């Protein structure tokens, strides 16, 4: 058993998410920084999608009942070895400080956390409530049997957090003025405090629509994490893993899949720039 003594500001169980139900209105959810999540599992020899703890802003305090092999990855917190498998003796309490940079960290336990899957995933969907509730003090998580994989050695360091993410313009960039596209590209945006797993809100200039699109209403269309939606007030929201699967605001650009992990590490106050790339077709 792994006991959550304190969850810190926000901690959930995540895996690689709920796939195959988007057409029924189910968001994908899953780890916000998939590379860090995968690394944590690989370090302890777990298969890639094994459920692990995702925690924001450090502050997590855990205790293992029995000896456990664990790995911490993602935003680096003091108090423990980072990006390396390590043994926790029974009863040892581990306290994580707040990370110096980045937002989300992962704790994988060799054998994985045993959580009842919902629609094939153990991820907490913070918007719809599917999956386990966010972790609370006193929660006890069962650990699964030893996997076949080997425990791996230390694996480099975290960071620096990238403040530039690449985007592909569209599908609704034609709703906006050329000046809005220019602003999207040239602005150093600031991550707002009301950002979460549903959406990353950023401060910067409003992105105006073309005159003919000012009063137009978009029929609901499907969205994906990384889509940059612009509501009528012109303030962009970058959709996160728990965002609804359809939305009625035009999407001016979509973040490249490879850069979604970087988005997952941005914290309130961080700068972020969107760099349009051309797709090869």
């Amino acid at each position, binding site marked *: 058993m792994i006991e959550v003594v304190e969850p810190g500001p926000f901690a959930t169980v995540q895996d690689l998410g709920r*796939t*195959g*139900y*988007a*057409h*029924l*209105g*189910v968001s994908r959810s899953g780890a916000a920084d998939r590379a860090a999540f995968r690394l944590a599992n690989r370090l302890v020899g777990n298969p890639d999608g094994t459920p692990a703890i995702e925690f924001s802003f450090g502050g997590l305090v855990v205790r293992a009942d029995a000896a456990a092999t664990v790995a911490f990855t993602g935003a680096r917190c003091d108090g423990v070895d980072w990006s390396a498998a390590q043994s926790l003796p029974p009863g040892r309490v581990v306290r994580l400080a707040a990370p110096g940079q980045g937002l989300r960290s992962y704790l994988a336990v060799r054998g994985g956390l045993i959580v009842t899957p*919902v*629609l094939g995933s153990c991820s907490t969907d913070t918007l*719809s409530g*599917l999956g386990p509730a966010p972790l609370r003090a006193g929660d006890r998580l069962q650990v699964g049997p030893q996997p076949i994989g080997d425990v791996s050695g230390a694996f480099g360091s975290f960071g620096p957090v990238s403040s530039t993410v690449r*985007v*592909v313009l*569209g*599908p609704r960039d034609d709703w906006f003025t050329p000046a809005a596209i220019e602003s999207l590209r040239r602005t150093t945006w600031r991550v707002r405090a009301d950002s979460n797993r549903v959406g990353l809100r950023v401060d910067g200039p409003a992105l105006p629509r073309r005159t003919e699109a000012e009063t137009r209403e978009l*029929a*609901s*269309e*499907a*969205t*994906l994490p*990384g*889509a940059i939606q612009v509501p009528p007030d012109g303030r962009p929201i970058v959709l996160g893993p728990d965002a*609804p*699967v*359809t939305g009625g605001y035009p*999407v001016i650009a*979509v*973040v*490249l*899949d*490879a850069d979604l992990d970087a988005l997952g590490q941005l914290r309130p106050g961080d700068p972020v720039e969107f760099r349009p790339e051309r*797709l090869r*077709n």
Partner: protein
Amino acid sequence: MSPTLAVRSYGDRAVLVETDESFVLPVARALLALDGVSEVVPAARTVLARIDPARLTQVTITRALRRASADDAVDQWDDPVLIEVTYDGPDLGLVAADAGCSPAEVIQRHSAPTYTVAFCGFSPGFAYLTGLHPSLVQPRLATPRARVPAGAVAIAAGYTAAYPQSSPGGWRLLGRTDAALWDTARVSPSLLRPGDRVRFVSA
């Protein structure tokens, strides 16, 4: 008849296909049949497809869809899903006034058609049904309710729907149902899936 087809990029791992409302489901099916498409999400006039960019491009998708839309696909309809409704919603009077008829006539007009699930979204299992009587095509409430109970049967923006979970909502409420609209223990968690036909029966 050849539908509108425009394939737009949606990041580097998906495309958004715009088409006519009546072609959304055939386009969704055609996309799902392509090698290299992993997930398809229909909406009002678009279909989003997650793709493997090593295997598909906007050009090859457009070409494949043009071939598919030229085929005379025959729809195999299942029997409609029947949903029993108690028509006692708080907006019945408002809807009747805007439709220019009596509340009893609203109930008759809402329970007469066979609807089609155009798409799901908003929340898990929330199905947008098309086929409303024209007089029931009415806007959302000016002020949304902070809480609409699960099972509420409602209309707005040219659709009708039943709320699978309680949530905030701005639709006009006509009644309620006890039907199990969402149950994650079922093979299909959503009672209503894109393409399903639906009838409301007055309880």
